[in-house]
């Protein structure tokens, strides 16, 4: 283990921008590396690797490893696994951080390298003495928090979106950019992607929206999502999301499902309508700055976690809320 050094993170990139998860990972990796005086390596793979490399340095990377060939479309994950394996074996980082989005690849890698993997981590901390990280993740469906260590190197951690914070962009930071060639062997690909279907969502994805109006099982069907909730979302300038039951029942697209096995969101305003507030759902939205709950059941769990709450039938509360908001907004602009 003693030859393993530095923190490696993997980020996706689009044009010259890192993904938001990548920025968060860099922020977290920076803290880990600084506490033990080591470096942060950032791996980017794909045709946008080199154009995003500068940004990676500005967000905290010491060295950016650019792999220009990210593998064929339809076998991205297989290729990424090979790339990561090559890079890890070459650079021997003591810690590898990836976004929870890449959990499958990271897990596969972990098993290949016979090293421990922790998934969906909400926190990663470095023990300066042992130079080992401990990883915090939610277990038992969100009812409990567990702190774990892993054996063998590298220690691999898949981090939940919005769990770590990115650093401030610092254009003056210095770092090196290294192109890396990784031979990708298509003979090792075991699956082929035949087709892709994009489902209707909104122009703004729920995980990126700053205002979300979320509907729950109590709405009873798809219609209220398209009428009452949409009207409120429009008035607020936000998007519509849902808890798991409406997505499971097919009332809304699965892309709108917010929760432990759905999207993790942290908007500035989250309005939960007819949502009970079970822990699996709260795991998805507890990062919100402000939570407003509207529910007909005064005993609903969500009222224990919200900032503002109204007890009443949504059919009466929400249209009145929407109407008044529009009125107040017009007054403001007038």
């Amino acid at each position, binding site marked *: 283990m003693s030859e393993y050094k530095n923190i490696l993170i993997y980020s996706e990139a689009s044009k010259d921008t890192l993904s938001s998860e990548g920025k968060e990972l860099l922020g977290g990796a920076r803290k880990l590396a600084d506490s033990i005086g080591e470096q942060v390596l950032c791996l980017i793979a794909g045709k946008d690797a080199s154009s995003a490399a500068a940004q990676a340095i500005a967000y905290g990377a010491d060295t950016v490893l650019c792999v220009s060939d990210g593998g064929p479309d339809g076998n991205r994950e297989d290729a990424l696994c090979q790339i990561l394996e090559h890079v890890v074996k070459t650079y021997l980082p003591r810690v590898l951080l990836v976004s929870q989005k890449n959990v499958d690849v990271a897990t596969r890698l972990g098993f290949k390298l016979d090293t421990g993997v922790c998934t969906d981590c909400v926190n990663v901390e470095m023990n300066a003495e042992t130079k080992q990280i401990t990883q915090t993740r939610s277990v038992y469906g969100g009812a409990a928090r567990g702190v774990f260590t892993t054996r063998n190197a590298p220690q691999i951690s898949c981090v939940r979106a919005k769990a770590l914070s990115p650093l401030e962009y610092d254009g003056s930071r210095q770092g090196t950019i290294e192109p890396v060639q990784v031979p990708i062997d298509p003979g090792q690909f075991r699956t082929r992607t035949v087709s892709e279907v994009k489902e209707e969502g909104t122009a703004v994805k729920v995980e990126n929206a700053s205002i979300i109006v979320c509907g729950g099982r109590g709405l009873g069907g798809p219609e209220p999502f398209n009428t009452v909730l949409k009207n409120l979302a429009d008035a607020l300038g936000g998007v519509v999301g849902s808890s798991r039951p409406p997505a499971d029942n097919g009332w809304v697209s699965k892309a709108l499902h917010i929760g432990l096995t759905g999207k993790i969101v942290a908007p500035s305003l989250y309005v939960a309508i007819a949502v009970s507030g*079970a822990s699996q759902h709260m795991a998805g939205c507890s990062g919100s700055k402000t939570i407003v709950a509207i529910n*007909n059941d005064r*005993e609903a*769990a969500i009222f224990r976690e919200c900032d503002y709450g109204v*007890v*009443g*039938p949504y059919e009466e509360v929400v249209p009145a809320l929407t109407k008044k908001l529009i009125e107040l907004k017009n007054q403001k602009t007038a």
Partner: protein
Amino acid sequence: MSRIPYWNIDYGFLIDLLFVPALLVCGYGFYRQWKRLRLDGLKLKDVVQSVRSYFQGAHLSALVVKGVINSRLYRKILAGGAHAVVMWGMAILFLGSFLVFCNVIFGLPVFQGRFNAYFMAFGLDAAGSAATAGLLALGIRRLAAPGRLREGGARKGVTTVESVILVILVTGFMVEGLRIAVNGPEHGAFMGNLIGGWLQNLPGVKAYHEYLWWVHGILGVSIVAYIPYSFLQHIAVTPLNGSLRSGIMGLKLRLTDFAPDEEGDSEPVLGCSKVRDLPMDNRLDSVACTWCGRCHEVCPAVISQKALSPKAVVTTIAQYLEAEKYDDASLVDEVGAKAIYSCTTCGLCMEVCPAYVKQTESIIRLRQYLCMEKAEVPETMERTINSLEARYYPFFGTDFGEGDWRKDLEVPEFESGETEYLLWIGCFAKYDERVQSVARATVQVLNRAGVSFGILENGRCCGDPGRQIGNDFMYSELAQQNIDEFNEAGVTKILTICPHCFDSFKHYYAQLGGVYEVHHHAQFINNLIQGGKISCRKENITATYHDACYLARHNGIIDEPRQLLSSSVQRIVAMPRTGKESFCCGGGGGNYWGEEEGKKINALRAEEALGTGADVIATACPYCLLMLTDGVKEFTGEKRVFDIVELLNECQPHS
């Protein structure tokens, strides 16, 4: 002045001879019907055996009271009245015809003196007039028939047969009138005299008389022959059904027996998918059914526009039986799973049925087949079954543990040999937050009254939801666990707060070997009040009481909860449809967990309750409490529904 029978009729006695084949044809028709009911196995010894056991079973008084006098018919006073008039009118006319026969064959002197005047003349004229008027009224109504006659199956051949009978009646009067026109007025024959007066000067009177006499006679004889081949069979079958089934209150089924039969080679039949699976009781029901649709009219599922019609279920079975499709399992498909699961088992259909048909029994038997044999259950009820199997209670995703309901409350535990009553808390009170306060109130009231009671520490349900959804197997297993625990703890007396638990313990646990003295809190606590063990003041509010189906209709507990209620509120106003005719809250038959489409039953009932203007809606059942609370939400955000014991507890001085 005496009348001469068969006056002007040559070979009049032929009509009496024709009666013989007519009776044979009629007899054959009933034999065939009976054979069908027995699924084609009817031998002479079966007939003898059945007749013997009927008389041994002492059904005769029920036959008269429920079958013939049948007060249920008159719940619809106009239709019932018209039917009575037709029925009794025809009965008297038949008696009259029989007496003519006796006179002709045996020389019985019926045509003389006062008997002739009062009965044979006046009596029969009156009966005939009434029957004609009644038939006309019913016939005219059928032109603009109420929905219940058309929906769920419109019976064929009714208008034809009624028309024939009308023709028989009219020709009878015409014959009488024609006779009197020639022979002069008869003492007492007011109709005949009247008609005779009109026809006095008709040419060819005697010819018309003879002609119409034969028409009347042959039609009359034919109708008698035709009875079992038409809806007229109800004359015999329907009172028979009433006499056999009237003693049962509400829905009382026998649990499915899961033991393989003695030879061990045939497996038990679970539920019913075809006519052959249905027990004789329900087959007879389908034949006794007169397609009147009164069940259809009052059914909460029909009223809230669900797929179910109890009438359609019974008439479908009748049609399969008539077509002799005993083994055709498309019966259950034709009735349909949606319809079958819409039933809340409220039993109002059985309560209003003048033919004493047990519609709910047939529906539940079909449901048991779908649930236990095909494992076909509506999705939300599937979760209930899964919960019951995994957790022994029917809820999922609850916030409360089984001890939460009694936080900060002193609740005695049941001690073997020392405690008198087991207070069965039940799953609703443990896992549903709203119902917890009902359990707490009950404990507090019982404590104050000094009753020796205790609870058993377990989270189990009595199992009833499983049975309601159709799974007797799951029910039996869960019940057996409870019975084992009760017996080990030495429980002999049980108090319940839920009528479903009450019904379960009282009528179904006994079938599994668990026999206990069971009380519902409404009765028990009311007795305490009447016995002076409980004091309370009256709150100055008005309450209206909703009868739970499983208390009022299936177990006859109607007055005690009201008495209890009246000791804690100033006034009680009645909502529409109470007591035995109470309108269901919609929660029974597993439908508390069902996804309701369309109009909601509980909203309908809540509207009725709120319409009384009462401050408070009182119930004695947790299902009703929750369903009505939910229903009330459509109209107001206030908390208006309470259990009677909650109200009582509020009014007691707290120690």
